[in-house]
């Protein structure tokens, strides 16, 4: 090393290696639980049709402009609950898809593909709420979400 004015500090490699190993071990167990745990509520079953809708969603990168649960790009609106929103729903969605009005690209989906996208959006709508208008803010800073269906119901 160049002109050190203090002696070089020892690094306690053994201690740090142990901490690292413990952290990694905990992380792996945690990862396993996250992968296998149930969700907070019973959510609907994804159908084959909805799954095809999801693939269309990815292939056309709708995420660039739309969000689910607030996650995605912000050019367009969040679509988590588009199906159950008053005055919107399946027909409204289908009318939007191939119209190319304003900012949305003009897509050329077949009727079947539109059905698949609607099936996917319907499925997502069944999983919960966003924005979660009935959530309760606690004074610990925590937010208690309102869930769509609970197991006990």
């Amino acid at each position, binding site marked *: *090393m*160049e002109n*050190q*004015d*203090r002696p*070089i*500090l*020892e*690094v306690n*490699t053994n201690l*740090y290696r142990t*901490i*690292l190993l413990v*952290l990694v071990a905990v992380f792996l167990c*945690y*990862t396993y639980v*996250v*992968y296998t*745990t149930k*969700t*907070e*509520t019973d*959510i609907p079953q*994804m159908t084959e049709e909805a*799954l095809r809708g*999801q*693939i269309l969603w*990815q292939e*056309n*990168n709708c*995420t*660039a*402009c739309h969000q689910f*649960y*607030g*996650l995605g*790009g*912000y*050019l*367009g609106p969040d679509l988590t609950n588009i199906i159950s929103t*008053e*005055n919107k729903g399946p027909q409204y969605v289908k009318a939007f898809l191939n119209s190319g009005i304003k*900012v949305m*690209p003009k897509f050329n989906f077949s009727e079947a593909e539109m059905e698949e996208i609607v099936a996917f959006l319907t499925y*997502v709508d069944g*999983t*919960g709420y*966003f*924005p*979660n*208008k009935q*959530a309760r*803010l*606690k004074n610990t*800073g*925590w*937010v208690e*979400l309102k*869930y*769509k269906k609970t197991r006990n119901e």
Partner: protein
Amino acid sequence: MNKKIPIAFVVAALCVLIGGALVGVLAAIQYLEPTFLKETLPFNRLREIHVTSAISWIVLSATGGVYFYITKELGHQIFSGKLAVFHLILFILTGLGIYISIFTGNMGGREYLTFLPVLMIPILLGWIVFGVNYFKTLLANVKGWPVYLWMWGTGIVFMVFHLCEANLWIFDHFRMNFVRDLTVQWKSYGSFTGSWNMLVYGTAIFLMARIKKDENVARTKIAFFFYFLGLTNLMFGWAHHIYPVPSQAWIRYLAYAISMTEWLVLGYMLTNWIKSLSAKEKKENFFPYRLLVITDIWVFGNVLMAVLISIPAINHYSHGSHITVAHSMGTTIGINTPILLASATFMCSCINEMILEKMQKTLSYGLALFNISLIVFLASLIIAGSIKGQWMYSENSAFYSVLTEQIKPYIRYFLFAGIGVFVGVTIVAAPVLKFMTAKLREA
């Protein structure tokens, strides 16, 4: 190892930095004027070109730096020069593949990785190759690793982990359950940003140690404490991105608790500043040093914002709004970019001691423009985000155009400031790029 390899990584990185910033400006124009370029490059492609370029800038320049520092500065013989060449070629080709995939609209991946999913295979391979080269070079040769070596190694390992985890959606166990799928997807992004931060902050510490000629910067207990704190946040803090998602509540509770440990970072930075006010530190005029010092201010601001929006009650309003964008762009542009530019300019000064003096004036102008623009840039996003946060819970929340109109003036400031950021970054990056390209051409 061929001396040109690290330089080639940084040259590629600087090209995508300038190109990506330009595309960012185009995307902002489109955000404001939806018909602009809509037919040729709609927003769902433009945004991805921008995002891919930004991430590639960070990853490629950090990688080039690591190769350069372990071989040239720390003087180690690389385990395999051939693997390093392979790594470089693989990344350049995959990068081209990604751009082609997005330009032609052949996508199909998830957010941030929207390109054709098969392209994940060469990316993964590249990181494995990098890891083999890194650990084989250093494990046997260095005893008592300083913290930056830990950080770089951690960054590489977690990037491999991220790339695997981000693709779990191809399995039915995940994709048949939307909530689990979304949860795991965002868990993988925790490792993604966490691992590039390890690479970048490791670089910052390395540079500080070198510039101050004091290796102990990277050997103190406190340095290691913050390394482990960062790692813990990487592992368990990611769920602050998905507070509204109905995953198991304990995952989110844990993330809340872990995220609050970041107050320690703020506290530490504050006490350090107070100390340095009394101890008259000699003012370095060395450009990489100035970049790092300025970055400290951005780090403080961004961590403060990150901690605040990690409080679920605040996140309730900021989530899904432009405040999140202010956070992600604030960290990538305000923190990662200056550190990596410090690294690139430091590399220049290692190659030719006088070069930075020649560039001094240009670099200073660029940096000033960059910083001023960035303040306006982030402020506009924060204001637009606050408006969106209110709108989401208002009666108008089903009418998107109400929001669009309300935030339009701020998006306009955002665009102008974005042009400033682009020009500022280019003024700094262009001479560095020119110098390095000339070095590449030399026989």
